């Protein structure tokens, strides 16, 4: 029988975490749209509060049951939400990424709330999970998933800004073409503008948005308030550079555990191979990012594909495909 006081504390912490994430989503969405500093400050407080209470709730669950909480999907989704917000906050404080906070907190809120659906009660771990590796392997892979989630949020912002920039560019082309009486299909896309600064020659990556903002276009003005496309691209790269080693070490520790539990470090279990497929996607991303022509929008889309593979690996395999990792009650 679980201690009712601890159960109450657990419930309160869970509700605070979900509420903080949900409120933080709205507040940081307000910051994204209006750039009001008060929203940013409040949003950062809510993000930190939500993250801290989410971790505290996990700790309370462990304290309450004596069972390591990461033995099922409820526990891992809780950690995913908490780690996602923690990793986001680290990057946000370092690189001022709060404009992306609404997306991250929304995903965290949904993950945590969805995770409660998988709360079947407190069950001791099956023999295969009774290992010290569960305290190493599971947090590592969940941390990797959470990191890729943050990278995905930044990549989405990149795609939005780039798409609107291209849209403004094609409008400019069509307007010029109409003025010249020229068939649009023959018109060339606007050339990228370069400016010379005191530190070199820099490509202006959103010349059409800049021109529109100069004319007072409100959408362009808002988008110009986001970091430049090159900065968004670099941020995404830096975040993936954290996630890929985490995923690598997570896969390796999983293999070490599999050797002890199942007799072989690799058995082509759906979870193992889905994780490998995700690793391949992000390895492709890192390789292609070394090429000038592939940095930017193409790598952003690869990031989106990578996160889709992570979602499939994390949830799709656990829920839809049976295998050695299916510990669903």
């Amino acid at each position, binding site marked *: 029988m679980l201690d009712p006081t601890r159960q109450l504390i657990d419930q309160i912490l869970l509700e605070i975490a979900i509420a903080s994430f949900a409120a933080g989503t709205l507040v940081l969405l307000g910051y994204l749209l209006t750039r009001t500093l008060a929203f940013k400050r409040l949003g950062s407080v809510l993000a930190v509060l939500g993250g801290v209470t989410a971790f505290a709730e996990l700790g309370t669950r462990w304290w309450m049951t004596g069972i390591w909480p990461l033995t099922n999907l409820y526990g891992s989704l809780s950690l995913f939400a908490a780690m996602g917000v923690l990793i986001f906050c680290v990057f946000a404080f370092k690189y001022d990424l709060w404009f992306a906070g609404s997306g991250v907190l929304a995903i965290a809120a949904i993950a945590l709330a969805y995770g409660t659906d998988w709360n079947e009660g407190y069950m*001791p771990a099956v023999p295969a999970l009774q290992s010290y590796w569960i305290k190493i392997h599971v947090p590592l892979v969940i941390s990797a998933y959470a990191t890729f989630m943050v990278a995905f949020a930044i990549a989405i912002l990149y795609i939005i800004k780039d798409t609107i920039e291209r849209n403004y560019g094609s409008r400019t082309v069509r307007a010029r073409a109409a003025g010249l009486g020229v068939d649009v299909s023959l018109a060339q896309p606007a050339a990228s503008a370069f400016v010379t600064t005191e530190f070199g020659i820099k490509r202006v990556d959103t010349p059409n948005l800049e021109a529109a903002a100069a004319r007072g276009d409100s959408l362009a003005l808002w988008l110009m308030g986001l970091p430049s496309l090159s900065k968004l691209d670099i941020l995404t790269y830096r975040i993936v550079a954290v996630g890929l080693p985490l995923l690598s070490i997570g896969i390796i520790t999983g293999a070490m555990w599999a050797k002890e539990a199942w007799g072989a470090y690799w058995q082509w279990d759906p979870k193992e191979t889905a994780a490998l497929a995700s690793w391949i996607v992000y390895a492709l991303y890192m390789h292609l990012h070394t090429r000038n022509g592939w940095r930017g929008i193409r790598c952003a889309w690869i990031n989106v594909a990578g996160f889709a593979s992570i979602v499939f690996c994390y949830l799709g395999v656990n829920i839809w495909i049976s295998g050695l990792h299916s510990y669903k009650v």
Partner: protein
Amino acid sequence: MTTIAAEKPGKGNAVRGTVADLLNLLSDFWFGMLLLAIWGVMTIIGVIVDQQKDPTVYFTSYPAPLARLVLRLHLDNIYHSPAYVGMIGLIVSTMTFATFRSVIPRRMPALRPVKIDVMPLHAFVSIPGDEPSVRERIAAYFASHGWTIRKREFGGDEWTFVDKHNWARRGVLVAHVGFIVIAIGTTMYWARGYSGTTAIISGDSATIPQNGTTIKLNSFGYRIDPIRTKAGTTYQPIDYVSQVTVTPKDGKPYDAVIRVNHPLDVNGTLYYQSTYGFAIAFTLTKDGKPLPVSPAQPLREGEAFQVDGTHAIQYAQFIGTIDRKTGGAGTDPRPNDPGVVINAFEGDQLLGRSMIPLGSSLDLGDGYRLAANRYVLYSGFQYRHDPGIPIVGIGAFVLVAGLCISFYFLPARLYVRTAAEPDGTVRVGIAATTVKGYDIYEERFAELVNALRRTPAPA
């Protein structure tokens, strides 16, 4: 007049040309990326398509054309298919050739002068003083901040090449080497390793054919607890333990315990607790007399015995607790009120299926009765000898080290050239390149230039 002798097209030249083309292909970055993408797609296919199932399963699960496609393309065992293995081999090959033929040369550029004013990252700084002393001050500044300084003269002009984290340019090489070492380790298992399974009934022993080790199962214990969940009561396995006596080939017997997550190591072969089950002792009688066809040993699930030339009885399933209300299987897997389900066959044709409570018998007609007498626990073990594991472990460590070096260190090179100005200052031109493009270094370059501008003038 110089006569140029035409080169005769010979077999040797054609072969050399083909080899050169092949090496160029294997070194090509885009070819490698294509292979990586195909490998990813093949891996995903293996996740989505059930692997290593009976062909009938695919016809049941998928539309017939898709099932035929799966079987024809060997997608039912894709990870062990020649295409998949060959793909990994190709990736390892391209990785090797690309690393040495193109990655390293690109990442270790020769010291050459550049046109500073056309480099994306460049700046000009005016520093008072004479040229030699300004050069020395700049070199001293960079050296004091951990940069490596090298000076070269080109066409009478002295250039200073300033590098940081030059060693980290080899990070990609390290990561690729790690991958190759992993591949070698896994190949060692295929070449020299072995694995298998064995199930031993309590009190019995089994000898592992590959190494001659004998394992006697003294006893098997398990624990299953009822747990109240929101969905109702569920029965959770808590522990499985096998108490064994191990006799290595040419060795002395000793007692040991095998449990999940605690494999037993016998001379480099690991034995794992894999499964367990209930073996049943059956007796077939006719008119009350036991028949010689009755199995001499208890049967495990799935095993069958022949009654006569065409008829067979199969032990299909163990029921831990019979639901006396429905007469079927209860939810409790513990043998509180056990029974067994048997299938009767005539040839391949299933004649019927029935459940026999343990300790009772089933009338088969014509005076035949089948008794399910008692159960005996058996323990299922997996064993594996993999000499490649240490190699795989080293490879994994090297791979991760290579990733960290590649991702977290930014090798940068500065090209510095000085020119004396008429006003007594020295114009210092600086250009920067990195292995990860220019954008990523923009802010740091600006800080560096500003720091140089603040360098105090000579007294």
